[in-house]
């Protein structure tokens, strides 16, 4: 990573030594990162790791205690207005007016961001079609489901053609089906718009959609790499098979693939580097007597564990305790 003192103005997002301090608690403890234009960059980590605080500083909503950051070529402290003009924001909590229609919400946004009148309608149709809400444009937002509201927020965040779109936990609180549909829209948006996406998430499987991921813990970036490299570094996928004869299967796996399998939860379980590619090998060995197969990837917990030595749940617990013991931070959070 580039370790010079000043942020790189050609990057979409660049930070050097970014710090946020609340009393004697450092929520963000010296962050360096460079996000390339056009990249999809993910922040992963437990609640309280400092992801949201970092995003807020990058979006000019919080002033850093120390360090520098540049977004879309503008300084987040001295050029707040220009940064805001060039970023789109989708928060964890909804920020729509439920009493207005979808179109009225977008229109409001277009005016506040000074989108030229001549393109407002075309652009509105474009972003609403992208998230599949054009037919519902005149419906009041409080009649929308959680997923529709999130989609509308994404459309709104794109309305003024920002250069960087910040998505803070874009799928939190949504059911799995809606989550995957949201990712479908984000993937499509990556194809259609010339945009850098900066997102935070809890879920390792969602991080798959990112070009690079930074894992955060206790206000620091623990590791920063591509999802594949991260997973490879943590190790292996877990394969579970249901067989007619577990003992025989374990013996055969040892003999033919040199794998140490064991029985766990009524299944034969073993680890391989790439589970999905390994599965076809199993079927070439009919004599294993396979009834079912499941492959699970290393979870965020596995990756997190490997780099921090603790589970995410422990990390969230200690973050919550810190929050409680710091009245200043608690007050800051409420806003």
């Amino acid at each position: 990573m580039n370790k010079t003192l000043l942020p790189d103005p050609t990057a979409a997002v660049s930070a050097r030594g970014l710090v946020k301090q609340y009393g004697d608690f450092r929520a963000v403890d010296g962050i360096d990162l460079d996000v390339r234009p056009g990249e999809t960059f993910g922040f992963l980590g437990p609640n309280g790791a400092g992801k949201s605080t970092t995003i807020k500083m990058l979006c000019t909503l919080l002033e850093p205690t120390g360090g520098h950051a540049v977004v879309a070529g503008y300084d987040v402290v001295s050029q707040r207005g220009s940064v805001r003009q060039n970023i789109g924001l989708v928060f964890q909590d909804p920020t729509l007016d439920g009493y207005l229609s979808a179109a009225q919400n977008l229109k409001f946004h277009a005016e506040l961001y000074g989108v030229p009148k001549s393109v407002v309608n075309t652009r509105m149709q474009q972003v609403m079609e992208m998230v599949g809400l054009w037919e519902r444009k005149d419906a009041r937002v409080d009649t929308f489901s959680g997923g529709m509201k999130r989609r509308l927020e994404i459309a709104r965040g794109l309305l003024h053609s920002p250069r960087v779109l910040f998505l803070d936990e874009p799928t939190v609180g949504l059911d799995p089906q809606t989550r995957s549909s949201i990712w479908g829209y984000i993937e499509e948006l990556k194809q259609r718009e010339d945009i850098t996406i900066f997102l935070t998430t809890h879920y390792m499987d969602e991080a798959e959609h990112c070009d690079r991921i930074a894992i955060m813990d206790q206000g620091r970036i623990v590791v920063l790499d591509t999802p594949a490299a991260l997973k490879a570094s943590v190790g292996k996928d877990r394969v579970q098979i249901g067989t007619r004869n577990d003992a025989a299967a374990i013996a055969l796996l040892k003999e033919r693939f040199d794998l140490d399998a064991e029985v766990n939860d009524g299944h034969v379980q073993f680890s391989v580097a790439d589970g999905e590619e390994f599965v076809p090998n199993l079927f070439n060995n009919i004599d294993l007597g396979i009834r079912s197969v499941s492959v699970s990837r290393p979870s965020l917990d596995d990756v997190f564990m490997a780099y921090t030595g603790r589970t995410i749940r422990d990390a969230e617990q200690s973050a919550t305790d810190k929050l409680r013991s710091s009245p200043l931070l608690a007050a800051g959070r409420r806003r």
Partner: protein
Amino acid sequence: MSIVPVSVVDDSRSHDLRGVKVVWQRELIRFGQDRMRIVTSLVQPVLYLFVLGTGLSTLTKGSVEGLSYRKIIFPGVLAMSTMFTAMFSSISIVWDREFGFLREMLVAPVRRGALVTGKALGGATTATIQGCIVLAMAGAVGIPYNPVLILVLLGEMLLLSFTMTAVGMVMAVRVKQIQSVMGLMQMITMPLLFLSGALFPLGGLPTWLRVVTRLNPLTYVVNPMRHIVFDHLNMSAELRNKITPPITWWGWHVPVGLQVLVVAVMGLLALAFATQQFNKAE
């Protein structure tokens, strides 16, 4: 489909004006949707005018020297109704905070002053519309529909509601809970009403209370409103002075033009203060 390129104009003044306008428009849309609020906020002025007004008339033997009490309090009730609507419209900031929409406004590249001004103008417009419904009842209490009278009253209502929305916002910007802000408004509106000359002449008050009436913006609106209404009624100058004594500062009669100015300046000061608080509240 190809991407529509959006190049954002960098003229911050026209940009801020668009911000003011769209915030104002939203207030009007929300007002138009809330028919219930329009009806319920009519209850209070009707009560004052036809219940309290009629009731008190029996005390004064039906009239004050031939003038019904309903006529006397009509301009005051008009001002009261406008003021209440204006103050309560500023509560929408607290709602917006609670439902997250405030955030959408706060992160936009628009000056806070533009947002606050848009809200104040929105409150002023909706409160004046609300006031017009009360104004329409003039005939029912025997006040003529004179065009000049109506225009002057409209102007005063607009000025008053702008100032009171701004005053309401000073509170609403910092208070985070809807219950607290409701209580706060309630606590403030009643004394403002009683110490404005809207319901009774201020002449008989002790000195310390009279000082309070001079700091109350409502005083400077109610006084000219009463004067213009009474100008259009058949009454002696002596009686008019008795029920609406002129506002004085240390014995000096404050002219109407200055009264209007006082209210406007109070409104602008409140607006500036609300903006400053808004900047801090982030």
